[in-house]
């Protein structure tokens, strides 16, 4: 039973990350490969405040993480307003490497490569949530709220504006719309999603280290969006649930644990290539 709860909880956290990535990459067309870095900052911020000498309660810490990640994501997305398309991928790649370097080397803040163990469980209004079932409920609430926000945005004029920006920024400006403001708003939202996901992740696992927030993790997020389906809510849900099931399926096969991690990366990479080639719209999405 606990196995299922953990799988669902983790998938729900990745749904929030899928929404974040889908919003930027799928809908606005800002090809970010650094969403895991923002996710990591959210996780470390929440861990920091929960483990402080005077521990903060969970929701305020999560709020601070969300605000921090909004600012950070707007900042790292800003180059996309000047640098277009392919060049931004390189910029974003650099941002991801920079973040990994900070997570790994800033031992005082992040515990370095050894990570941060012993993060306390989240609490709601001073009631600690300790059972896996309670944590699952919390993450379900987070994912449902995230999906609701995504749904409301996509059917509002704001969603239409973002889709139009992806197709032709110049034409959007000629229609009297502020492209810069719309992009910054989208980046802020994507940052909030990633920050909340980070906070939930840190408290759910009670241990974080840089390997969860590195380039591989960013590429996993892209794979989830591509396989699930870009630009749709359904795609952002299907992708994480499917890709997180893969490692579990692999454990059913008789593969030595030493190569299991490598097998997983291999599989993710192959999925990304195959979907891009044969089904770029993913399982439930639109063509990227």
């Amino acid at each position: 039973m606990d196995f299922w709860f953990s799988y669902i909880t983790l998938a729900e956290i990745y749904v929030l990350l899928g929404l974040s990535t889908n919003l930027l990459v799928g809908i606005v067309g800002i090809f970010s490969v650094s969403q895991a870095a923002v996710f990591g900052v959210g996780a470390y911020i929440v861990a920091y405040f929960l483990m402080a000498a005077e521990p903060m309660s969970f929701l305020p810490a999560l709020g601070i993480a969300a605000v921090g990640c909004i600012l950070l994501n707007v900042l790292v997305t800003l180059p996309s307003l000047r640098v277009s398309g392919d060049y931004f991928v390189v910029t974003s790649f650099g941002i991801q490497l920079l973040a990994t370097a900070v997570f790994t080397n800033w031992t005082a803040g992040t515990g370095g490569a050894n990570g941060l163990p012993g993060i306390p469980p989240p609490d709601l209004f001073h009631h600690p949530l300790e059972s896996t079932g309670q944590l699952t409920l919390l993450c379900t609430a987070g994912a449902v709220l995230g999906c609701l926000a995504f749904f409301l945005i996509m059917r509002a004029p704001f969603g239409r504006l973002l889709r139009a920006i992806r197709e032709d920024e110049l034409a959007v400006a000629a229609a009297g719309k502020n492209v810069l403001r719309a992009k910054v708003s989208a980046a802020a939202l994507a940052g909030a999603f990633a920050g909340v996901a980070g906070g939930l992740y840190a408290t759910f696992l009670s241990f974080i280290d840089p390997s969860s927030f590195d380039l591989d993790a960013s590429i996993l997020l892209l794979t989830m969006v591509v396989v699930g389906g870009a630009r749709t809510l359904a795609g952002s849900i299907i992708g994480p649930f499917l890709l997180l099931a893969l490692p579990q399926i692999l454990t059913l096969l008789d593969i030595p644990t030493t190569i299991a991690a490598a097998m997983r990366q291999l599989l993710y990479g192959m999925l990304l290539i195959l979907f891009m080639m044969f089904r770029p719209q993913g399982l439930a999405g639109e063509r990227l």
Partner: protein
Amino acid sequence: MTAYLEVVGLEKRFGGLLALQDCSFAIAERRITCLVGPNGAGKTTIFNVITGFLKPEEGSVTFRGRSLDGFTPQAVVHTGIARTFQNLRLFADLSALDNVMVGLQRQFAEEPLGAIFRPLHAARAQARRREEARGILAHVGLADRANERVRNLSYGEQKLLTVARVLATGAELLLLDEPASGLSAGALDNIMALLRRLQNEGKTLLVVEHNTRVVQQIADDVLFLHQGHLMAQGTPQEIIADPALAEIYFGGAI
């Protein structure tokens, strides 16, 4: 009397190329003015300067007595000027209706907070604006194509849609870049009738056009541009009758 739109002494360079030099003209309200001239005369560059997409090295643009110096493209739209593009620049993956709705100004929930925290109000407001957009589509003759994706529309329909998107902004001065090029005879009559109708409804049109038949039929005034400079202006008859201009325009073919 102050001119409706006045352009004074525009100069624009692209590297070594002088696209506009000392270009000045004025257009009158509620008239259709055609901007003609050979390829490379600077017609589209003028559109880009007026609408804030390009900054001129010299000169000024004044609309209803107000300088547009330093205005961004979106600020220009808010003063009441909107443009189409020669290569259309429609949102190909969106429906015809959505293309028009992107043009509507001052929409509720065109930012995330309104969309998330006041969803019911957003839905009601959007339903009203959708009707407004349907009305605009009907006005250009695309009522039955509202939910079609742009990529499935014919070229003629796409041209009409660019006019609809411009109308959605509520602009009074419409800059249309070759609205009639590449159209069949039927579609051509269609769009000329539409331009006349817009004029009767109080719009002012500045139109880049190559087709002399179209110019003769719709233009009240013609501005003849050559090498980035206003060479002549007058009625369509005066411009077409001038042998020196025909020589420039047709390169001596006539």
